[in-house]
């Protein structure tokens, strides 16, 4: 990993993240705002796609999970009494959709994909998972891309219960409370799993 030199470790390791206001979107959708409905449906599929690739299965699982998340969100989003609860409902729904999708493919080995790794679409053509931001320094982009591929490989070796906590807490930016709600475990358990997972990932990444 790239060394960054000495620093004040007391600062939180934060990364800016665009966090949609799910509750506001749900409220708008409940008043018949079509744009809000469409944004919710797209968000649901985005979450399902990332969850499938990083925490659950592979590309085929991702498409199934996206479809399931889309339908569930369409049916239930406007009926949710507490819009504040939509976010954890969505992640819980996506988690369950991914698990159902995996069970359908019980004979196929689970394989995690990096978001930078090419994969094959249904039509057989290779498609890129993500494009690097061309506005960034090419060398920095290359280093980040390499590190992310390493991270994806290391994540595959992390047991599922730890991997899903890393995904929800670190990659999706859910709070400890939200992760606990989604997974149905205690906050203390979330913290313990997260710490052990971080130590594992650190060791594996530092050894490469």
């Amino acid at each position, binding site marked *: *990993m790239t060394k960054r030199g000495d620093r004040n*470790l007391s600062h939180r390791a934060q990364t800016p993240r665009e966090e949609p206001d799910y509750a506001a979107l749900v409220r708008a959708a409940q008043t018949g705002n079509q744009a809000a409905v469409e944004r919710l449906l797209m968000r649901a*599929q985005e979450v399902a796609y990332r969850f499938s690739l990083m925490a659950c299965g592979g590309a085929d699982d991702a498409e199934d999970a996206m479809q399931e998340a889309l339908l569930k969100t369409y049916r239930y989003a406007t009926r949710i009494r507490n819009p504040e609860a939509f976010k954890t409902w969505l992640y819980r729904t996506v988690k369950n959709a991914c698990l159902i999708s995996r069970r359908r493919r019980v004979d196929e080995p689970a394989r995690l994909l990096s978001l930078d790794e090419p994969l094959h679409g249904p039509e057989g053509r290779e498609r890129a998972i993500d494009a690097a931001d061309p506005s960034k320094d090419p060398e920095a982009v290359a280093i980040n891309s390499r590190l992310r591929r390493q991270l994806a490989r290391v994540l595959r070796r992390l047991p599922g219960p730890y991997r899903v906590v890393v995904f929800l807490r670190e990659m999706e930016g859910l709070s400890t409370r939200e992760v606990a709600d989604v997974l149905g475990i205690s906050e203390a358990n979330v913290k313990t799993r997260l710490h052990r997972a971080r130590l594992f990932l650190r060791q594996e990444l530092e050894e490469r």
Partner: protein
Amino acid sequence: MKASTRTVRCRAFLERLSLYIDDELSGPARRTVTLHLRGCPCCHELADSLRRTVVLCRQSGGRRLPAAVRARARARITALLAEGRPSPAKR
């Protein structure tokens, strides 16, 4: 200081490093860890690399869908809203 010289006291700090990085320790506990890290190169390096791992994970998350996947997602939404009922999976 090498990893092999890590003491029992170091291991106690190790258990709290994630809480420290996440700024979830109380004031006195936080100061205790800060002081230990200043005086222990072994733990300081470990904390630094742990923090880099956390940053890498966070930078790897929340990314947009690739164009082809996004197009299929958009088509599913359009079909669903047009029909007013669940559409079959478009693969």
